[in-house]
């Protein structure tokens, strides 16, 4: 069993308009010191997944089923209070928009101190020293001074560093970063990603990076999970997913990775249409309305939900097409296009 082991996680929201299946049967695992990248468009269920691990869905109307094992403890059935005591201490999270994710009325220091003192019975002075220390470690200059600044007085990158400092303040064993760089400039993105990599090594924690951008996880991740419509469509090592991707959706994501030599809006392999409504998930393969190869499998695309099947050595793909067909398409049609650039 991995350090974090998620098994058949389902997160459903009943709404006036019908049942929203945000996450529908998701399984994955992460080891200490390893990094998992979860990739998908907005609405694919990736953020909901991460929040449910921390138990942040509680209080809402979400219905959870499945199992979440963290260091041998099952969290879904665990008491709210117990999960709370783990939050921040054993598992922590970095959010997408550091401006809105930090309380505007408290100084950065106050917020880090608070995070630290929840789990450590220390005086304010000690906590403050720790906060300054953490700020220094995430690369904020003059931490002793900036500790008394408010979030709005920081630049975007600094704020995200502060968020990271806050998340790491209790030395968590599992760190989840939800779109940690989306709100940042490209140059700052790289800095933050470097920082996270360094810190992960230093703390030896398990890291989950959630993003819609394969580029972000390319360098950082050991494993990558591609989500679509609340389901995993491809799961494998970073190498598998980058060099031997087998799902047409992954191909599309690869094709839309930003590169310095391309206009950001220009897409090589455009994914036509928009993500599926989670209320009315298309029957059969959820991706079929957008899949250029859907007709190849005839009626099965619209009537039968494809299984997540192992293609080789832990590389899982959810597609009706046969392994050979997918590999053929990748080798002959997709890879050459991606490489021409």
């Amino acid at each position, binding site marked *: 069993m991995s350090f974090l082991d998620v098994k058949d996680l389902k997160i459903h929201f009943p709404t006036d308009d019908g049942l929203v299946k945000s996450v529908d049967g998701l399984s994955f695992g992460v080891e200490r010191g390893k990094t998992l990248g979860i990739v998908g468009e907005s609405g694919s269920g990736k953020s909901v997944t991460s929040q449910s691990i921390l138990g942040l869905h509680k209080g809402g109307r979400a219905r959870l089923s499945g199992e979440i094992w963290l260091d041998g403890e099952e969290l879904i059935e665990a008491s709210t209070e117990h999960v709370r005591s783990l939050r921040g201490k054993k598992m922590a*999270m970095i959010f*997408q928009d550091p401006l809105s994710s930090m309380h505007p009325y408290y100084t950065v220091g106050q917020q880090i101190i608070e995070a630290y003192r929840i789990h450590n019975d220390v005086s304010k002075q000690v906590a403050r020293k720790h906060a300054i220390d953490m700020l220094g470690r995430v690369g904020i200059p003059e931490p002793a001074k900036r500790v008394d600044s408010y979030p709005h007085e920081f630049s975007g990158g600094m704020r995200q560093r502060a968020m990271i400092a806050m998340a790491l303040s209790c030395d968590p064993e599992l760190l989840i970063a939800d779109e940690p760089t989306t709100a940042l400039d490209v140059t700052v993105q790289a800095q933050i990603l470097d920082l996270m990599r360094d810190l992960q090594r230093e703390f030896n924690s398990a890291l989950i990076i959630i993003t819609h951008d394969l580029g972000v996880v390319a360098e950082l991740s050991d494993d990558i999970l591609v989500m679509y419509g609340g389901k995993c469509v491809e799961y494998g090592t970073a190498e598998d997913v980058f060099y031997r991707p087998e799902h047409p959706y992954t191909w599309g994501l690869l094709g839309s990775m930003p590169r310095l030599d391309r206009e950001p809006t220009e897409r090589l392999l455009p994914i036509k249409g928009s993500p599926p409504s989670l209320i009315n998930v298309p029957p059969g393969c959820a991706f079929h309305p957008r899949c250029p190869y859907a007709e190849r499998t005839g009626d099965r695309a619209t009537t039968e939900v494809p299984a997540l099947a192992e293609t080789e050595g832990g590389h899982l793909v959810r597609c009706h097409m046969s392994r050979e067909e997918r590999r053929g398409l990748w080798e002959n049609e997709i890879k050459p296009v991606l490489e021409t650039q």
Partner: protein
Amino acid sequence: MLTYIIRRLIGAFAMLVVISMVTFGIFYVVPQWAGATPEAMASRYVGRAATPETVHLVAERLGFYDPVVVQYGNFVKGIFAGAQYDYGAGVEHCPAPCFGYSFITGQPVWPDLLDRLPVTFSLAIGAAIIWVIAGVSVGVLSALRRGSFFDRLTMGTALAGVSLPIFFTGMISLVVFSYGLGWTPPGGAWTDFSANPAEWAYNLLLPWITLAFLFAATYARLTRAGMLETMGEDYIRTARAKGLRERQVVVKHGLRATLTPILTLFGIDFGLLIGGAILTETTYTLPGLGQYAILAIRTQDMPQVMGVVLVAAMFVVVASLIVDLLYAVVDPRVRLS
């Protein structure tokens, strides 16, 4: 900061000037448009025995023959420099701020206003304490238990509360609690706080509750909406992700953000109320500024009207200035410049 305050004070002053001009216009100029002569205006302020000579003399004394600009100028001069009041047997200096002397009673207006202020202030402060505590706590609890029976009950009550005219609730409460059950004193009861605090509170209990009910309903609705919005904010999620207990999440992170905009409203509402809670004071016949305003308008006692309007406007202006300054203290993102 200082420049900001100075700028705001100048703005506030300009606003009061505009308000005084408009008020002056309504009471001094509009009647003239409607065809009132100086004599006709003066004859409101004489006894029934008045001869044309008397009316003429009074019109002269009240300055109705002067051009409107001069009349307004004299009024403004009185406020800043004080005025001379000829009471027949001599001349009295009415020190600044002199809002003039009542056309009806001959009493200086300013002491009258100061005299009535405690009544309205007492009414406002008591009601405000009740409505803030009740409104905010109900709003927070409703937001936290959204969809519960409590939520639906209180929000239903709150909606009813904002839909009830205060003169109606006031009358009903008087009929039931004062004249019916005899639990509370009848309308018009007022004791000065310094004279007897217990009686002061007892006399004001019903007006407080009635007025507070109306505002509490509004505040509960606003607090609930604000709390729901705040509790959906990213930083609340962050607070939870830190492992903070829910109570602290709500109190330290949620309430703090929710209450800040409520504070603004409170400042304005309170400022408006001190300026005269006309309907409440009319319903309970409390001798406050609101009742004073109504009496002044009914008797067309222009100096009184001008005085009460300006004082009321001043409270709003000052309240909004204080609120803005407080806001800067409470919300570090706000910079005064």
